[in-house]
């Protein structure tokens, strides 16, 4: 009775045996993620160089994995980090906890927090995977809707074989 089913099943298997493989031989071959892939975060800057992040903790509040820690502080005339009154004195994302859901990016009222396509996050200690503000913040404002490849550190070759 089950003959047609068995036949269909076998056809599927045989077809796939000859299909092009989806897996690649990482790390020799590195895959280019889709442009809107949600990887490691960055903190953006304004064109004048000030930080966009105002330390509001909304990203930390919304994070379902409790991966973000923000401690705000007040800008002073001498030490100004961001426009307005408040900036993030401490900003950390714990990549051992982050599930890359992107809710934090959605919650951010200033579009300071963005996600890149970088997915190669590993470290040899737990502390290594708690990214600090210095690691997350970009040196210069990024261009929205960037070409993904362009924005990644030059030493990472996402194209494939090295």
């Amino acid at each position, binding site marked *: 009775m089950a003959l047609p089913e068995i036949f269909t099943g076998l056809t599927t298997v045989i077809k796939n045996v000859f299909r092009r493989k989806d897996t690649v031989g990482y790390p020799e071959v590195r895959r280019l993620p889709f442009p809107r892939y949600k990887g490691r975060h960055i903190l953006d800057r304004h064109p004048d160089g000030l930080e966009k992040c*105002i330390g*509001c903790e909304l990203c*930390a*509040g919304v994070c*379902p994995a*409790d991966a973000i820690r923000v401690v705000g502080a*007040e800008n002073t005339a001498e030490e100004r980090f961001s426009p307005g009154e408040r900036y993030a004195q401490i900003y950390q994302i714990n990549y051992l906890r982050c599930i890359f859901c992107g809710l934090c990016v959605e919650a951010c009222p200033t579009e300071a927090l963005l996600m890149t396509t970088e997915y190669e996050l590993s470290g040899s200690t737990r502390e290594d995977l708690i990214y600090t503000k210095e690691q997350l913040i970009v040196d210069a404002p990024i261009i929205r809707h960037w070409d993904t490849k362009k924005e990644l550190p030059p030493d990472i070759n996402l194209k494939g074989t090295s």
Partner: protein
Amino acid sequence: MTQNGGAPKDTQVGLTLNGRELKVEKDRLLIDVAEEVGIFVPRFCYHPGMKSVAVCRMCLVKVEGSPKLLPACATPVTDGMVVDTVDETAVDAQRGMLEFLLINHPLDCPICDRAGECPLQDQTYAHGPGSTRYVEPKRTYEKALEISELVVLDRERCVLCWRCVRFADEIAGDRFIQLVDRGPGTQILTFSDEPFDSYFSGNTIQICPVGALTSKPYRFVSRPWDLQTAPSVCTYCSVGCPLTNESRDEKIVRCQALPNENVNDFWLCDKGRYGYHHVESAERLGSPLVRSGKEFEPASWGAAVDKIVSAIKDKRRIGVIAGGHLTTEDAYAIGKLAKKVLETKDVDSRIQDAGAPYERALALGGIAGSTATLNDVEGAPEILWVGPDPKETLPVLYLRLRKAVNDGGARLTVVSPRATSLDVIAAKVVRCEAGGEGRALREIDDLGDDAVVCWGQSSPGRDETDAFDAAVAASQASGGKLLVCVPHAGSQGMLDMGVHPGLDAGYVEVAEPGRDTRAILEAAAAGELDALFLFGADPIADFPDAGLARRALEKGIFTVAVELFPTQSAMRADVVLPSAAYAEREGTFTNLERRVQKLERLVAPPGTAQEPWKTCAAIAGALGDAWGWARCDDVWDDIRRNVPTHKDLDLALLTQEAPAHAPFYESAFGDVQTHTMDPPALTVAGPGGQYPKGYRSGAPFQTGQNWPLSWELRAFEAKQRPGVIPHPNGSANGHGAAPAGAPDAPDAAPRAAEGGDDFVLLSGRLIYDEGSMVSRSKALGNIASGGYAELNPGDAADLEVSAGDRVVLRGAGAEVTLPVRIGDIAKGAVYVPYDQRDVKANTLMSGVDSRVGVAKA
């Protein structure tokens, strides 16, 4: 004024509320009645602790027969009233009001400290429109004005609810903040150039329904969802205001008033609210220290206790002095250690109030303390105040005295050698001679019935037995009650637990009293003691004869100090043991009306610091008397077994579970359609609600630690925080015999010489001083006023000085130069604040009648 209090029970009215038939007391406000039955009416300006002004129009409801919507916060219920809070017109009006409020609201929630616990945010979410139709530019003001050391004002965010203004005028009586200008330009401001330096300014932050008034020390420090919260009690004075400690990352970052209409209403003073930084001070002791030569060396607890045991074994001439900031459990342990284990009667806890004759109140119903509660004070027809300025020493009691006079119509008489802040509301002010309080009290002949007589030691170290006896007699004569204002949070607990030379735990009088603090220090200075124990006691800073304290501690007697900080006295000890601060421990405090209130632990103590009762138990154990205490509850069990006054006091009753359903907060979300709040489904925003505190703050949600913080929680009252200790002889208000052995009134004639250089030295603490805790609380450290010498205008003229000039004070071998203030003070007396940075008044004191020479500098 509390609108729901005190209505006569027999006048009930029937009304229909959203289709429900209700029977309630007449004249109550609709908003309260609705809330009680679970119907939430949104509001901004209404506050249960203050009179209604009905300015925000957020609480409009439909009342049948009225052509217009009526504000629920200003409409008393009447018979046959038919009210609908969810009528389409009412809901429409509420939505409209919110839209109006948001026209000029900056919507800078992301940088606003109130976000996450903001009534405007929450009510907009629950009752407001989804979007705005207003596209014009908003009104702007300069942001973040620092209006005092503690308060930051953002006028853009203000919704003009008048709460802060009403608080300042009505409750605190300090008119510092006001709405100025009219129309769209209306703004909240302090009077030009004058800072908002009220002792109660922090309350305006807690009641402001938006982020217009925010706290400077808490600025940008945390979000409500980061906070862990534990209920606690303020340790600064004997009013014992319930508060919450809130911590982020194991550091206390904020304290808020926990409303209890029996104690603090809805308020705290700024010392209580901002005085928490001492807990995390870098100076805190974290390990036992044992002296070797001139230096201290850190030691283990075992080694430190061994050292104590080897030094005191078989020694029986031991003095024990305890401070006023320890809990009831500590007090019991200290009493037990001293009297049972060390077998000494030389135990006392009165340091600043050395010699205060509390035990003489025993004649009034067997209590060394108050027979009146704070509610009795508030409800009294007559109040007689003799004591220190309550605004400086017992700030929230001052608020309640104001309420008693202004709202309750009490007639207040003040007897004091010096102007107090009560004078402006008093019906009668008696300015007596220094030390002449007793005589002045006996001369008062117009005290009506049922007066509550409040007595506190008005100047540290003076012998005020005469005044105390006169106060007791006055309260007996009027058939009223007595409020004994002990100075510190733990002082009453010490008396209750027998840390007193003449009393054992439970007010049992001992036949042969031991030495009191002064006598202990004198004995130590004379080398007549083998060892001295100081529990949270710093006699050099606090005892009203610094010279004696210094001699006693420098005599080389083996001294053990249990302390939070390396105080002057502790640094002269041989063994210093670290103690846990109030936020680091469980325990109870007994306030001046003898209400027991519980502290919960929130943060960890530094190093190996531990509760003093554990230290006592360890020392007793090492001396061969194991008490078997491991937890606070064990101490309580012991107390209940051995202290008759406390035998029914179950600690479990004081331990509050998180409520099964969170009571209403001012911005509760219910069913928006019907405004009803089904308790199980109820979600409450803001601190202590089911959302969002503790929800994802790292540490798990802790039951019992998640106390509601909001001032709306009127339910948290005596029923849930019982504990006014019953009188041992069951007498309700204790009309007893006259104090046993009361001496004949001594000749209270003033000994103060006219002018010249022989002045009576009066002192007393100001709210901000150099106390070991206040001075280490960084928010308060800089606002202490500093020392001064207050003189009578006549004396000043005799000395040829005027305000601002400097005078030299000489007494007890010390000499200080201070600026002069001219004040309403008895002739022949000079007032110097007790413990200020530039003058320690106790260095000028000696004996029970300190005198100083005053001369122009």
